[in-house]
């Protein structure tokens, strides 16, 4: 039995070490290849060069990515949190709750390129919004909706039931309970879920290829304009071959740094909020 225990422990620690090593290697490799390219100019200039991206920077792509992400988070985040509130606090029918859960799981399973195709045919062509931030963000928003909903629902369900019941027992309505207790109490988890959803949207390429992201555009000033995006820019740089591989790594470096920093901030915020819950 002891040998078995040791083997299981060895296997667990070994797997953990392997996973950490792979992640560390990936980050270090990208950062080591990319950091030389990253400069103040690279971050603040538009791409240039005979083959686009060989020279100049990625500023419009950074701003474009932020615009896509923020719009997607608003489009997907609001219904996601609302759906979680409904499922946990308002829905009395088990059947309705199960159907909503099934729909959300189905959305989570839709391949992102299919969401891109849907958004392209509905928003870009039928509604004639054209290729723009809004069209792409609709696809991205649908993509992050289940991601945020699952996290919000988990946070709501983890609240002590007697606390919610105490509010009802005072005679307060569901709306008052949700707005005054549930949402403030879960703010940490909600913000962190939304930021993680934003990271997910920022890294996605497929939903925006046909719907809003373009090879070159100025910094966007409205939602009905197309824009550059970091993942698509990265894809195009790699597709151009060896000439722009350095800038590709630089772009990957910036994208990973943005996502990593956001992730860390989200985790720290959620932890700080949850520490306020514990009795010290």
């Amino acid at each position, binding site marked *: 039995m002891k040998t078995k225990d040791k083997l299981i422990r060895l296997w667990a620690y070994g797997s953990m070490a392997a996973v950490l090593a792979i992640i560390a290697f990936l980050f270090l490799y990208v950062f080591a290849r990319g950091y030389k390219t990253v400069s103040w100019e690279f971050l603040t200039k538009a791409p240039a060069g005979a083959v686009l991206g060989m020279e100049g920077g990625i500023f419009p792509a950074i701003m474009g990515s932020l615009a896509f992400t923020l719009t997607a988070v608003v489009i997907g985040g609001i219904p996601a949190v609302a759906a979680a509130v409904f499922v946990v606090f308002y829905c009395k029918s*088990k059947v309705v709750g199960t159907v909503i859960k099934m729909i959300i799981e189905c959305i989570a399973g839709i391949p992102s390129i299919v969401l891109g195709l849907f958004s392209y045919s509905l928003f870009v062509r039928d509604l004639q919004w054209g290729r723009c931030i809004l069209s792409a963000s609709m696809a991205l928003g649908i993509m992050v909706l289940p991601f945020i909903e699952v996290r919000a629902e988990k946070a709501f369900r983890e609240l002590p039931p*007697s606390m919610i019941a105490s*509010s009802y027992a005072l*005679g307060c*309505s569901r709306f008052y309970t949700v707005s005054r207790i549930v949402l403030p109490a879960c703010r940490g988890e909600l913000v962190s879920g939304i930021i993680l959803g934003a990271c997910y949207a920022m890294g996605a390429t497929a939903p925006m290829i046909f719907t809003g992201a373009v090879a070159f555009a100025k910094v966007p000033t409205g939602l009905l304009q197309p824009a550059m995006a970091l993942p698509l820019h990265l894809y195009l740089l790699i597709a151009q071959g060896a000439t722009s591989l350095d800038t590709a790594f630089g772009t990957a470096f910036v994208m990973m740094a943005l996502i990593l920093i956001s992730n860390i901030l989200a985790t720290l915020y959620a932890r700080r909020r949850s520490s306020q819950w514990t009795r010290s």
Partner: protein
Amino acid sequence: MDQIIKIQQLSASYDGKPALKNITAEIPENRITAIIGPSGCGKSTLLRAINGLLWQEAGAAVSGSVLLCGTDTKTISPEELRRRIGLVFQTPSPFPFSIYKNLTYGPLYFGHPTKAQLQARAEEVLKATGLYEEVKNDMKKSALKLSGGQQQRLCIARALTVDPQVLLLDEPCSALDVKNTQIIEELLLQMKKDRTVVIVTHNIAQAQRIADKVLFLYEGSLLEEGSAEELFACPRHEKTKEFLSGRIG
């Protein structure tokens, strides 16, 4: 003695499993009524039926009626009913805010009181629950940082902020030590001057110490009811005798 609550032929079941069986009972005004009985006999369910929470629970089928001052509680809006019949749960469950915000939560929902009114109300209920001296300089402290006994007293204070006629307590002392239990018992004895108290308790000695009237539930049925002295001194039903002697529990 006026009867403030009348329970008439109340039955309830969860997903087809009976929890309360045809209960008819009366709760006297400005008295402490204790509901006793072995675990799972339906004590808490009866409490939730009195303040209407049971009707809203998923999977619960309820029949019969509960009258508050002669009015069927089904005809009173849930909010108004719960404002008039407060409920304190077994586990202390303060909201994750400051002590002060816990006490203004209810009044702010039911009206637009001024800051001075809110402050006065908070102080009044803190004094009524004996917490005022302990927290008067720490009103902005998180309620979660109070001790278990203080949290439970805060929950009672919070229930009092909306001035209920009846206060229901579901084993409020089960998680507390002897000293805090004593404080809460004294508090309930004080409270019955102004309002009716119904307490579910597993603790026979506690019911003996504070109750004026006792209801004994067994497997969802009301087997025996009567004044505390009468019921504890000479229980009529065999199951009541067994429960009081500790043979079932």
